[in-house]
Each structure stands twice: as structure tokens, then as C-alpha cells.
């Protein structure tokens, strides 16, 4: 009885999660084992064929594309995010809030609009090409749109704030006297960074990487707008199957496949941070 009372505040959250996450997810799981007729209507007939299709080389390639995109997005956002987070954390209080505001600012604008922004920048008649042409650095427009790299750029741009904020949190928590202790004991700036700062901010890196990796795996509007369908990603595939393809059972099976990939990443994240957590944040 006492336990129920203690956990009472958790019930609204639990109800919220059940209604908005649990039930839809259950429906997706059920749907993934069903079939459809030629018009796209669901037939209540158990089948594993949707899952089998996932191992078709064509679809495996799509999974691989998304996986590569997500991994590279993680690496790029890490390389950009770490220095930004590090220097933000070393600013004084006032400047720090200002810089964090700047980092958050893009969230105030629709992400769809911001993605369109990139096509204005990178397009054949885009700003970058125009400038390069104007200064005669190039004589014909560079082809920067509708490539894997374009999607990667857009995705990394969209997700980099999550990486920055995650790392910022752990750099901010870092006890500066540990760095001083390292200098004092004979460590230079770089040695101190690799021996003290990096290992101690690893939880932030792992968290940021996870926060970036998971959406990068599933985002589909960026690849739609910037990739032009030249490279197929799981997000697009699921979207296409569910809408134009009228094959919701197959889309569901692929969605489950994607969730399993995410679970795998979370598992690795758990392993990476498990050993550190205890000693880092006592």
C-alpha cells in the first residue's frame, strides 16, 4: 500500500506512455505479422514473410545506407560538437548562457524550413555556387545537391545541437582542479586532454552519440528534400511502403527492424557508460 502511494506521481506518466507509445508500438508489432491484399487492406493472417523480406539484398543495402549515415552523422557532430561544447563550458556565466541560446536558436524555426534552407545554399543556382561563380573560382556550378553527402550534411546540421548540449553538460561537470592536478604533475595541455578530460567526458560523448545516432537512423524528410531519392534510407523506405506502397505490414516489420538496431546501440551505450558512471558521478 505504502509503495503504491509512493509511486503515485508516476501513474500519469505511465498512462501517457501506455496510450501514446505502448499501444501504438503494440499495434505496429501486431501489424508486422499480418498480410495485405492487393488494394492494401489488412488481412488478419499470420505471416513471417514481412521479416523475411528484410534480408533481401536490396533492403539490406537500405539498412546499411541508414546505418552508415547514422554512424557518420555521429562522428561529424562529435568532431564539431566537442570543441564547441568545450569552449562554451570555459566561457564566463553570462557569455555561456548567450552561446547556449545561440545553439538552441535553430529549434525555434521549423526543421523543414531549415532543410529547405540548405537546398537554397547548395543548389545549382544556390548561394554558394553563385558566390564561387561571381569570384570566378569555378566556371560552372558545382553539383552539390541530391547526394549522400548532402543528406549527411543536412542530418549532421540538424542534430549537432544535441551532441553539443550532451558534451557541454559533462564538460561543465568536470572538476577543473583535476586538470590543474594533471598540469601540476607534469602533463601538458594535450596530454591532460587525452588522459583526463576525454575519459571523464566519455559519458557525455556516449550520450550525445546516442541522441544523434537514433534520429539519424530514422529521419526521412531530410533525405527526401536533400537526397532527392538517389540514396534510399530506412526512413524513406518505411514512409514509402506505408503511404504510396500501401503495405503497412511490411512498413511495420521494417520499423521493428529499425527499433532493434536502436536497441543494439542503446545496449552498447549502456556498456560504455556502466563502468564509468559509479566513479564519475559519485
Amino acid at each position: 500500500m505504502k509503495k503504491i502511494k509512493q509511486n503515485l506521481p508516476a501513474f500519469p506518466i505511465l498512462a501517457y506512455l501506455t496510450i501514446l507509445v505502448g499501444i501504438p508500438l503494440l499495434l505496429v508489432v501486431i501489424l508486422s505479422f499480418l498480410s495485405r491484399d492487393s488494394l492494401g487492406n489488412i488481412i488478419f493472417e499470420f505471416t513471417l514473410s514481412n521479416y523475411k523480406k528484410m534480408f533481401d539484398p536490396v533492403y539490406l543495402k537500405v539498412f546499411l545506407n541508414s546505418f552508415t549515415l547514422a554512424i557518420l552523422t555521429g562522428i561529424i557532430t562529435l568532431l564539431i560538437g566537442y570543441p564547441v561544447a568545450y569552449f562554451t563550458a570555459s566561457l564566463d556565466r553570462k557569455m555561456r548562457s548567450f552561446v547556449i541560446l545561440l545553439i538552441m536558436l535553430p529549434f525555434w524555426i521549423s526543421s523543414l524550413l531549415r532543410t529547405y534552407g540548405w537546398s537554397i545554399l547548395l543548389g545549382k543556382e544556390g548561394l554558394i555556387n553563385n558566390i564561387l561563380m561571381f569570384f570566378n573560382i569555378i566556371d560552372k556550378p558545382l553539383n552539390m545537391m541530391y547526394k549522400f553527402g548532402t543528406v549527411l550534411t543536412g542530418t549532421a546540421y540538424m542534430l549537432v545541437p544535441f551532441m553539443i548540449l550532451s558534451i557541454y553538460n559533462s564538460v561543465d561537470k568536470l572538476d577543473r582542479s583535476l586538470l590543474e592536478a594533471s598540469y601540476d604533475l607534469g602533463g601538458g595541455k594535450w596530454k591532460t586532454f587525452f588522459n583526463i578530460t576525454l575519459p571523464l567526458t566519455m559519458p557525455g560523448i556516449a550520450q550525445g552519440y546516442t541522441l544523434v545516432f537514433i534520429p539519424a537512423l530514422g529521419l526521412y524528410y531530410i533525405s527526401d528534400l536533400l537526397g532527392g531519392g538517389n540514396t534510399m534510407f530506412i526512413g524513406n523506405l518505411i514512409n514509402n511502403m506505408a503511404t504510396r506502397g500501401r503495405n503497412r505490414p511490411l512498413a511495420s516489420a521494417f520499423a521493428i527492424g529499425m527499433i532493434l538496431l536502436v536497441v543494439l546501440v542503446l545496449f552498447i551505450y549502456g556498456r560504455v557508460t556502466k563502468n564509468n558512471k559509479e566513479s564519475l558521478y559519485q
Partner: protein
Amino acid sequence: MIEQLLSIRNINKFFGKSHILKDVTLDIRDGEFITLLGPSGCGKTTILRCIAGLESIDSGDILLYGESIKDLAPNKRNVNTVFQNYALFPHLNVYDNVAYGPRIKKSISEDEIKKRVTEMLELVQMSGFEKRMTHQLSGGQKQRIAIARALINKPDILLLDEPLGALDLKLRKYMQTELALLQKRTKTTFIYVTHDQEEALNMSDRIVVINEGVVQQVGTPNDVYNNSKNLFVADFIGDRNIKEVIVLEKKEDFYRVKLGSSVIDIKADRSMADRDKCDGTGSAILAIHMDKMKISYTQILNSLYGEITFVHYAGSQIRTDVDVDGEVITVIEYQNDYDNYNIGDKVYVSWEENGALLLPKEK
């Protein structure tokens, strides 16, 4: 001539507009245990950080073995610090913490490092703790590891920044003795920062009293305690009755002063004689150690007469307040000739000659 290991020459330090260190000059001898003592915010930790290289200095110079080290990065100075919060690396175990210095300097082989770490852990009595993570250690143990980690580099000077501040009273007393012994055993020069006068008096060869970024007095514990040079030191170190008095006349070997309506004599060689800012008249400060005073029911020469207003038995000592013409004088006695005092008793208060100081009025 005594070997000067470290010379601090007229250093000044500003944080923004506030002047933290004002022309600090200090010579530190090889092998001594010297303590920087002062209230919090007096700049003592800043001096330590300037020596370590963790703060730059705005003017002046710091010489180690006669060579300027003021422009050297902290990792190029052969001094090591024991930080106030220990600053042990939380992701490394005890062994790796202690081995950090030699490893990062790549000065010696892994075999040699192992030998040195073992030696160091023995020195601080922490053998067998190699594999522990630092968060599994108690405060006192962390303290020892921090010392071992700093000493393994064989520094010319070990800097200790209030290292006992976080420990409980009993452990603190124990560690004071340990530290003093360790210093003698390793023959390393210790510069120790504290705001705790008892710690300073207990361990140091010499004490540097600092207030508001200015060195007030440098001397042996005995010197600083008994021959306080100015009002600040007299007030900060030891429990003293500090009263303003009127100087009536200056005699050959004593001053005749007036406190309230009592006229008393203060021996001159223990007073302002060598720092005579007083022309023998005007007002001055009389400072008398509370525990060098005595209460008596019979009249004594050169004493104050008043009425007991408060008696406090604190275990081994008795604190008694005596009202002398409206001025409250506190007397601390460890034993007395009478069974007890009663509030309202009229008594005479006297003091040992070397317990009283006459100081110039300005701080």
C-alpha cells in the same frame, strides 16, 4: 649563509580590479616546513598557486634555485601540489593515480614506476590499496594518496593547500603529526597553507602571517605567537584581550599605561620598543594572552581590579570574565587556587610579563 631555495620577489597579483597580492616578498629555505597563515580570502592560496604556476603574476619574480620560474608552465616546474579537495582522478585507481606523474613525464620505465609507487604507498601507509578506486577511500585515505601522488615526482617543494580542511577534528590532529613526520623523513620543503592557527603553530618551522594580500609577519611559531608584530597578528593568533590604552610615559624599560582608571606598567622590550611608532604618549593597543593571566583575591602589584561577571567551566580550563571599569577582560586558567569563583566577586587580574604586548594603534 642559509640556502634560499625559493625566493618570492615583490609579487603583485590582481583579479580584475581587486589587488590580491601586494608586494609579497618571501624567502623559503631548503628543507623547511613553512606555513602561510591567514583568514580566508587573504591571498595565501593565491601565493601557492603562483608558485605552482597555476596563476600568473602581474609583477615581481619567483626564483627557484636562483632562476626565475615565473614564465614556466606548471608542468615545467619541479614543484607539486596537494589540492584542497585532493583532486584525485576519479577514473583511475590508486596505483594509476600515484603513477600519473612519472607516466605522463615518461621519465622512468614502468618497472621503475612500480617500485616508486610501492615506495610511496608505503611512505603514506597505504600499501595494499593499489587496486581501489578513489571513491572507495575515506577522506584521510584520499589525503594520503594525494600526498603520495605529489611526492612521487620528487619535487623541490611540496605545496599543500589546506589539505586537512575536510577531515574531522581527531583525524586532523593525527594527520598534523603524520605530515610533520613525513616532512622530516622526506627532507622535502613543505609550503603549507591554512587558516587554522593551531595547525600552523603545531607543524611549522616558520609561519608567514598574511592579511589582505600583505605579509604581516614571518617568524617561528614561538615568535609569531608571543612577539606578534602588529595588531592583526596579535588578534589573529592566540586568544588575547585587546584593549585600547592611554600611554602615560615611556620609561627606560617599561611603558606606563592607563586602562580605564587603572595605571599599569608594560615591559618595554616586549612592546613597541623596536618598532616605535609611539612617542611615549597618546593611545596604543594592549594585547594580553588570556591564558597567561591569573585571578587573585589578594592584591598583586601591577594588576587590574574588577568584578567577575561570568564564569565558564570548559573541561580542563576555566574562562572567567572580569569587568574592569567597563572593559571586559577574559582570563583562561587551567587550574586555580580557589575552588570556584562567584559572579560578583571582586578580584585582581595579573599576567605573566611575557604575555603582554603593547602595539601601535593602526593595524
